[in-house]
């Protein structure tokens, strides 16, 4: 119990939060709480289709979460939109391919695509290796900050992932 509290404080200091694996006890609790799988970054907002958005002014950077890349498997291809494309909150703007499955990526915000991460053409695996940093997918000039209220904060998203994973 004490080690879980310590781990939570450490995670909070490091600006990450991890879902608590209820079945762990004792010293294993500490290790499991700090495992990088399904990491959720503070200061980002999250969509229920497992995309994240980082907002700076009216500029939004979008990618898929650690939970998403873990559940996809190794990404071998990313279909990127053209710069200048309009995106709509909740609608698909591109896709990733992994294990013979193409999965649509939905935009968490509406606006215009001002930049795409062209590194993903040669290195699609960046989405797996660095989902929140080098694996970013598009940058959007947002239409309205009001839309952000539809998205989840990190704690809500962590809980959402736990509930989804508990279904099977």
């Amino acid at each position, binding site marked *: 119990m004490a080690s879980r509290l310590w781990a939570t404080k450490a995670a909070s200091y490091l600006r990450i939060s991890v879902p608590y694996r209820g079945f762990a006890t004792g010293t294993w609790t500490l290790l499991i709480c700090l495992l990088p799988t399904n990491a959720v970054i503070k200061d980002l907002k999250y969509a229920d*289709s497992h995309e994240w958005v980082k907002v700076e002014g009216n500029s939004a950077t979008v990618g898929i979460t650690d939970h*998403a890349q*873990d*559940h*996809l*498997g*190794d990404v*071998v*291809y990313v*279909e990127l939109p053209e710069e200048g494309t309009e995106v709509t909150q909740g609608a*698909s703007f591109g*896709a990733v*391919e*992994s*294990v*013979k*499955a*193409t*999965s*649509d990526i*939905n935009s968490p915000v509406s606006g215009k695509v001002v930049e795409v991460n062209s590194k993903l053409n040669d290195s699609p695996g960046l989405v797996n290796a660095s989902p929140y940093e080098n694996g970013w997918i598009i940058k959007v000039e947002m239409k309205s900050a009001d839309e952000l209220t539809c998205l989840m904060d990190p704690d809500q998203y962590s809980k959402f992932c736990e509930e*989804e*994973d*508990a*279904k*099977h």
Partner: protein
Amino acid sequence: MRVPRILEVWKMGVVNYSQALKLQEKLTSDRKLHKITDTLLSLQHPPTYTLGKRQTDHNILVSESELKAMGAELHYTQRGGDVTFHGPHQAILYPIISLRDIGIGARKYVEKLELTMIELASLYGLKACAGQKGETGVWVGRRKIGAIGVRISSGITSHGLAFNVDPDLNYFKHIVPCGIADKEVTSLQKEVQQILLPPEEVIVEQLISCYVRTFDYTDVVSKDISSISLDN
């Protein structure tokens, strides 16, 4: 208490690829809007070559006109995976299901499709296994007996799996199947050799049962629509 999970199975006979695609698009949209339950299309295609989203047509070894002369069609699709062939005596399942309802992602879903075919193969004494990294599908040794290519849109699946019961394997000579050059394609009939297989309908039923078990459905409703027009 187990949450009830209902599957509706459509038994469709031989269906043209474009028609099947249109039907899947409609069912995917309906499933997204919760108008229908999880649905499984069981069907076969006339001779058809298909490409995935990456459009790897360098893996087709003949021209499109040569394919047409053979009596085959070519389709570019939005599914994952490389080039493949579909034809008579190849059992296809297209599950249109909600992955969010069962809390799984692409990787786990594809694993379950592989398990479905592995289980079917085991009914005939074959030790099939999932492919290694980058070789998704079901293999008997170095020979591929089942292929997978899937699309997931807002958590709803379309396209699916193709299991070679006894298709004409010569059609595979005109492509680099799934983009893997140094391995063969095989079929259930080829693997069991002299053993007489039961009628194809029996094998298809078994495939559907393997799917139902692997995906843990509690109730199954079957619709035989092989004689009904799809234009509605």
